[in-house]
């Protein structure tokens, strides 16, 4: 209708005053957005800012309540994802929706009328390989999806969209589950796609990545534009963070001056070995010492033994060799209750394993404290104490408005993360093991968790922070160890280690020769 204003040359997608209500809640309160061909346009915003809702409108997945949309200058109304797809819009969701038992080539070509009815496997695979080479999305066309890593699966999902002629490619939080090297590869592919004249809409809340890959940046907050189409050259991290959250977020850092060795040792691992769920050796001879009041970061690409390391410390996994001590207690081979008793808190990688989702929020808040007084008196459970404890914890976690009787499954990801993080803070009297504690959180929520970890440090708790996010590790920790294929590759003080050194070790480079690991014990 009123579209001509948008029909500028080169403009492939134009959105004007898009409004979408969920019930009475305005998810989108009149959003404008535009993107041109050959550009990467980042859509930045916190969780709940409306990024995904907006892209679901563009993708025809949900209808907008009002507003105009144009594709290459023509006004369009989408009634289904197919309408959007016919206009050359392809979305790569956070969950890739691939068929596990099919090959890469089959996934790229399945369910699409341009695929011939009779076709040979080799034909499909050749077509897939050509496409993959064109966009630097290397992946074995004959491999089945279940054999692939997350990064490879994402490449298949992107290829699938490109194969169907997507000229406007929407990537929803594409780096959320990628390792640093996989992210670099993705960015290389995005460069190729941009060079081919396609439009890429890059949805993210990670400022560094947005600044690296985007040409222009649009920021949403609370379902409205707070900045539209900013050129990257005029942006910096601080400014974008302020736009996202309204008011600056201070990057928290540990105060310097923690003198290693001045504090007693809280957690000791000596020559620990452990197997993964399939009985393969996942940890090799890991030795580690954590002092009270220090944060030790474990850097490494996911799947290099992080989960096993965390589980072995808290007693959820049996060490096949070596010993684990918390203060003076020997916890080797002890059941999880002993780690709880010894005062070790644990923020697991997957929140589902730290929360009984069917049980109430109140119950979940109390599971760790239920072992002791005042909640437990002999065989009895004191309901009043439990209620008081839970209310107190929810208050601390900023969740006091949550009805305590509702099941934990109704919490949002951010709320669940806050609940677990604050509960484990209370449980951590001696040590805290935190695995990817800010994964999937937006800037403000992540800063909240960071503050919590630093508070633990200030309280004299030994914190082991396992994270893939190198920025986070470098920002918060006193000491960094690198875990690669279940081995500790080196141990460094934060002050005298470079990002490149750590990055190289994460990729498996040997620590020998750089003379930078005086504390390496492995």
């Amino acid at each position, binding site marked *: 209708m009123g579209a001509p204003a948008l029909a500028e040359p080169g403009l492939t997608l134009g959105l004007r005053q898009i409004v979408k209500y969920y019930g009475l809640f305005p998810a989108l309160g009149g959003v404008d957005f535009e993107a041109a061909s050959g550009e990467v346009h980042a859509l930045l915003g916190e969780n709940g800012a409306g990024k995904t809702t907006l892209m679901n409108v563009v993708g025809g997945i949900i209808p907008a309540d009002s507003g105009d949309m144009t594709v290459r200058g023509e006004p369009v109304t989408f009634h289904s994802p197919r309408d959007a797809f016919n206009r050359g819009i392809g979305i790569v969701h956070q969950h890739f929706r691939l068929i596990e038992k099919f090959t890469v080539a089959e996934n790229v070509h399945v369910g699409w009328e341009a695929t011939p009815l009779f076709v040979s496997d080799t034909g499909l695979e050749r077509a897939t390989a050509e496409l993959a080479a064109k966009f630097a999305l290397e992946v074995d066309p004959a491999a089945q999806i279940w054999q692939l890593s997350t990064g490879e699966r994402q490449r298949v999902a992107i290829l699938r969209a490109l194969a169907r002629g997507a000229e406007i490619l929407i990537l929803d939080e594409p780096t959320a589950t990628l390792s640093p090297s996989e992210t670099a590869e993705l960015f290389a592919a995005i460069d190729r796609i941009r060079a081919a004249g396609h439009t890429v809409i890059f949805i993210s809340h990670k400022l560094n990545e947005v600044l690296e890959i985007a040409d222009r940046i649009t920021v949403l907050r609370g*379902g*409205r534009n707070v900045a539209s189409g900013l050129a990257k050259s005029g942006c910096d991290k601080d400014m974008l963070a302020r736009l996202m959250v309204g008011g600056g977020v201070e990057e928290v850092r540990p105060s310097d001056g923690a003198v290693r060795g001045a504090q007693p040792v809280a957690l000791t691992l000596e020559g620990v070995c452990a197997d993964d769920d399939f009985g393969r050796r996942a940890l090799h001879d890991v030795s580690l010492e954590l002092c009270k009041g220090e944060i030790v970061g474990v850097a490494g690409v996911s799947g290099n033994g992080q989960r096993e390391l965390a589980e072995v410390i808290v007693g959820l996994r049996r060490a096949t060799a070596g010993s684990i001590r918390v203060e003076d207690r020997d916890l080797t081979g002890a059941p999880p209750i002993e780690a709880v008793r010894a005062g070790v808190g644990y923020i697991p990688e997957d929140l589902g*394993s730290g929360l009984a989702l069917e*049980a109430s929020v109140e*119950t979940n808040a109390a*599971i760790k404290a239920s072992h002791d007084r005042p909640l437990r008196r002999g065989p009895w459970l004191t*309901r009043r104490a439990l209620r008081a404890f839970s209310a107190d914890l929810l208050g601390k976690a900023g969740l006091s408005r949550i009805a305590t*009787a509702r099941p934990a499954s109704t919490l949002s990801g951010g709320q669940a993360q806050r609940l677990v993080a604050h509960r484990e803070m209370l449980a951590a009297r001696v040590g805290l093991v935190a695995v990817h504690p800010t994964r999937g959180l937006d800037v403000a929520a992540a800063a909240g968790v960071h503050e919590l970890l630093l508070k633990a440090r200030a309280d004299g708790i030994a914190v082991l922070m396992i994270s893939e996010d190198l920025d986070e590790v470098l920002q918060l920790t006193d000491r960094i160890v690198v875990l690669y294929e279940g081995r500790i590759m080196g141990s460094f003080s934060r002050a005298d280690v470079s990002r490149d050194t750590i990055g190289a070790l994460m990729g498996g480079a040997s620590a020998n020769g750089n003379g930078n690991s005086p504390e390496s014990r492995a």
Partner: protein
Amino acid sequence: MSSTAARSPAAALRIAELAGNRQLWLRIAAIAVGLLLGLAYLSTQLTPGTDLFQTIWVSTLGTPLGIQQWISLATPLILAGCAVAVARRAGLWNIGVDGQLLVGAWAATGVAFSLPSLPGVLLVPLMLLASLAGGMGWALVPALAQAYLRVSEVVTTLMLNFVAYSWTTYWITGPWKSTEYANVALQTKPIPESTFLPSFTVGGAAIGVSFLIAVGVVAALWLVFRHTHFGFRTHVTGASEEAGRYAGFDTRRARFAAMLLSGAIAGLAGSLVEMSTAHSYAPSLTDNTGYVGIVVAILAAGSMGGVLATGLLLALLQAVGSALRIAGVTSGVVLLLVGLLLICASLAAALPRDGILRRRRRVPPPDAEPSPEAPR
């Protein structure tokens, strides 16, 4: 910190929460809808000249005798519902209540037959204990297998039912074969009269002590699951075994113990039926009690108080079934009613989860509030 000023808002909040428990109201509404649909169907079965509803009324709630029958039918159903609900708390399905009930009654009968001269004051408690142990024993193998070998308890408990039926028949036709009664029905000679459980009369209806025991079991279980750490552990384990392990609970032991407790309650149901109404050991001590118990527990949605209510409700339906049979209408109608109730209750449980009836008045997250200063 426990000043009234500080506590009263919290108390008010609790009351508001209870009154606003949409799940509860939804479930009650669903059961009502199911009953109404059943009644609507029944009214199509009316033939001129017979007053079907009058027949139903007289044989259930309308007369002291009707009430008496209703309560006596309810006793085993409440206990069976408890047994299933206890297992559910630990995330388990006890399909074997029937078998545990029969073996519990068998153990009680064995005690009665071997010590017939003991006074009732001693014999009755012994028989009750024996039935608890018998039911528990019958659940032992499934409990061990599921806790330590991860063998599905659904299969093992169900299969052991058939073993228990055969076990019962063997004893009735073998060691405990009764010369006088064998031709009448498959049952043993009566247990000693001193072990018959008494009843007391309320408004003309004789209410058995067994019913009071069942109510006591409900109350005890409520206490266990609300106010003991064992109950808390079992509940967390049932909601998520992974989270239970993470919290430091011995989840295997929790599952094992819940299964044994479930079996013990089932066994108790067997001895109570035998000692209050049947008065001899027979396969007819269970009338699909275990399976109806599953329905009782599902309708109660894990609430122990709810088991009491739904146990009474299903007993009422069974009583209606008998009345219909007398009136010449097929008693399959009762199955239809039970089916309708289950469908309605399942829908009621699924509706809010799938967002169809989700509360509209949602509080937007603080970061999602539209900012007035945002440039348009």
